[in-house]
């Protein structure tokens, strides 16, 4: 099936998969951060600018990623994750 798809279509499919996966991460974060309404986070959202962000949220992210993706982020990785997209990329890299 893949043979008959053009390069553009293939990259679109990968892109759609990426969007779906990052959306799943966003949903997890929105569910775990009690005070956060659904639909307010985007891939480009700066993690530390999430309303009410505190050191406790860093712990929640560590546990959330560990629980859903079986990836135990290091403090350094979390520090380097400026946006939700960055966080997602770290998870993808660690999983690959």
């Amino acid at each position: 099936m893949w043979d008959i798809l053009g390069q553009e279509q293939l990259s679109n499919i990968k892109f759609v998969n990426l969007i779906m996966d990052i959306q799943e991460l966003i949903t997890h974060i929105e569910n775990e951060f009690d005070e956060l309404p659904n639909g307010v986070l985007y891939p480009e959202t700066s993690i530390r600018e999430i309303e009410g962000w505190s050191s406790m949220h860093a712990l929640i992210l560590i546990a959330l990623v560990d629980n859903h993706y079986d990836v135990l982020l290091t403090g350094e990785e979390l520090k380097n994750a400026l946006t939700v997209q960055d966080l997602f990329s770290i998870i993808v890299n660690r999983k690959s």
Partner: protein
Amino acid sequence: MNIELTHIEYFLPEIELTNSHLAERFEKTEEEIYKSTGVLSRRIRSESQIGSDLGLYAAERLLSNFPELKKKIDLLIFCTEGLDYKAPTTASTLHFKLGLEQNCACIDMPMGCAGFVYGLSLAKSFILSENATCVLFITADIPSSVIHSDDFEMRAIFGDAGVATIIEKSVRGKIGRFVYGTDGAGAENLIVSDGSTRKPIDENWLIKYSNETDSLAHGRMHMNGLEIARFSLQKVPILLENVLHKNELSFEQIDLFVFHQASDFILKALKRKCKIPDDKFYTYFENIGNTVSCSIPIALYHAEQEGKLKRGDKVMLLGFGVGYSWAGTIIEY
């Protein structure tokens, strides 16, 4: 020969540090503090009390309830991170204050959050090797003595306490096999570095902390909460599996899981990661916080009081923390 934990008694100091006190000091609401820590209140020692005092009160309470034990005790283990002196052992001073027999061995064990499980192991080993028959195991910690008044996170989580337990040859119960672990690379993430032999405090320290109780002369605790959470999430689930394997039991055969009561966040994260059902996961944290080496026996005491722990139940005990150190076993209560 089987060994069992037969008695638990504990003592909390009278001074209460409530969320209302903390809210006043840190410009947070009581609700915010409870939500972020899961703690409503903690007990704090008075300036004249140290760890061994809290342990002594717990032991006196236990021995006044069961005076027949006093002549039987032939090993006293004292676990704390706040020993009375560099020498002699604090266990021997407790031995004297309690009026125990002179044929009693005394050992200090500065072990922290894994200390209760380590102490059970030591007591079991002494009894199995026929070097003791009745062990008084006292745990007592006063983390408040090494927490700076500005350190909100630690003040909100930790509390002081003393516990006395008796371990004897078994009539009905059992203490199972133990699993231990150590990773000294994590030492810096939870440490009281000053105030001891390697880094004694000096005049500058005393001036710097002159507004703190005792000028923080016992040292100041530093905690990297993120790294401690990572350590817990990484090591405790593996410890759980290894303890089951070593005791040849399945997950379903465990009636109750009692972990070191590290923090509300860590306990909830571990429960979820280890997939432990609510009714099998006991916590006693809300009213006392993290009482270091005392947290597991206090939880056992209350689990029994609440009818959640019955004689014959298989209980998994997991201790983990400073060091890093971790240890686990299964007791048949």
